């Protein structure tokens, strides 16, 4: 068989796979088939303690596999097919482009230190400065394609949309404020020598690949993300199943509703580091147990980024900047939680 035909067949098969995955999601929508776990906290009481995680995972995966499959395939495809060279070219051109790229492209980057750290430093070094870099850093974990899809499918698309918007505002505010602080400026100065980076740059001649190889590369990246995220996700689900089963509703109702609820949720959302995506599932359980939607929003916003990234980043920008954006992010999480609660009457 000649090479051209083999390539065509491979391309067709890969495209078919992608369409099937998309089709599954669309089909589940049309049939109104729930992709979220269906177990209610009360259902757990009939199981012994060691059976709880097993049944919860079974329930979760019997419904959630379509959503998970789609999310990982989409994440891989988006990362492979986004216009990397264009981003590379415009990144350093001006402050406004920097902010727009930092915030606008964050949804295409999935939480992974391989993609986050280089971009953060790239934005910082190539001319856009510390503001857009911080914007990107805060935006990426809050609004990447995996978390948007999971929040939308498991909680609600309204919350997912609100989460994206408020994260965007928070990220831009934090970026602008930090770029105005003396310590932010100091770091910016330290990292910029004033010359146009493109003048000294080496050639970038990216090799173009045929479509089938690109698709394979995209699916490989998706599989890599699965390998990185799924083990922690599973552990997280086990923990969530116990929270759902044993957390008394009175405690949730008392501490996770009203103004106190927003404050508590924003505070525990931060330091309580949960693996990627687990915050969505845990948020859903707490919502079922009686947490208010306002508190849920604060909780989702309070999620920190990858610890590995934070460490790498703090080595570059130092603790004053880290502290500033943590405070801004926290303040925004409280204010937007309260605002959302007041506006929708769900405090």
């Amino acid at each position: 068989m000649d090479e051209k035909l083999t390539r065509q067949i491979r391309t067709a098969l890969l495209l078919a796979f992608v369409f099937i995955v998309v089709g599954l999601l669309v089909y589940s929508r049309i049939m109104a088939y729930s992709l979220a776990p269906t177990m209610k906290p009360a259902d757990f009481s009939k199981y012994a303690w060691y059976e709880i995680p097993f049944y919860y995972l079974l329930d979760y995966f019997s419904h959630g596999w379509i959503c998970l499959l789609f999310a990982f395939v989409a994440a891989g495809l988006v990362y492979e097919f986004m216009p990397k060279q264009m981003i590379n070219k415009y990144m350093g051109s001006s402050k406004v482009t920097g902010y727009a790229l930092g915030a606008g492209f964050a949804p295409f980057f999935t939480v992974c230190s391989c993609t986050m750290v280089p971009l953060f430093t790239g934005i910082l070094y190539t001319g856009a400065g510390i503001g857009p870099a911080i914007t990107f850093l805060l935006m990426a974990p809050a609004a990447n394609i995996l978390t948007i899809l999971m929040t939308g499918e498991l909680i609600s698309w309204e919350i997912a949309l609100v989460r994206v918007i408020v994260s965007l505002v928070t990220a831009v505010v934090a970026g602008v404020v930090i770029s105005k602080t003396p310590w932010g400026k100091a770091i910016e100065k330290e990292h910029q020598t004033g010359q146009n980076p493109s003048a000294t740059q080496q050639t970038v001649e990216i090799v173009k690949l045929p479509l089938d190889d690109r698709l394979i590369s995209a699916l490989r990246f998706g599989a890599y993300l699965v390998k990185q995220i799924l083990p922690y996700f599973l552990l997280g689900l086990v923990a969530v199943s116990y929270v759902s089963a044993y957390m008394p509703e009175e405690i949730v109702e008392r501490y996770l509703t009203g103004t106190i609820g927003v404050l508590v949720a924003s505070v525990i959302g931060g330091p309580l580091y949960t693996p990627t995506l687990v915050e969505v599932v845990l948020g859903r359980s707490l919502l079922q147990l009686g947490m208010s939607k306002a508190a849920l929003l604060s909780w989702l916003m309070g999620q920190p980024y990858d610890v590995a990234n934070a460490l790498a980043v703090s080595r570059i920008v130092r603790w004053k900047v880290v502290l500033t954006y943590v405070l801004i992010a926290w303040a925004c999480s409280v204010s937007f939680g309260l605002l959302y609660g007041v506006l929708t009457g769900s405090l």
Partner: protein
Amino acid sequence: MKTVKAKVFGPDPPCYRCTAVKENVQKVAEKLKNEGITVEIERANIASREVVKKYGVLFSPALAVNDAVKIMGRIPTEEEIERLIRAAE
């Protein structure tokens, strides 16, 4: 006899995907040694200012052959690396 410089870009500490690129390059280097092509493999920290300024790489893993960035944001296969190195002047 020719010498080709291959530079692998990645964050420090190295992430899994960048290590995979380096391993592929090493395998190719082993193979090409018999044909008289020496591949000098270097690692560059993508979080360093000098590297970003010089190469303008924003997506890791990346690979430069003789100081020209050829691959960005994905893991190239061994065959592809071999082609790139053979094509390098």
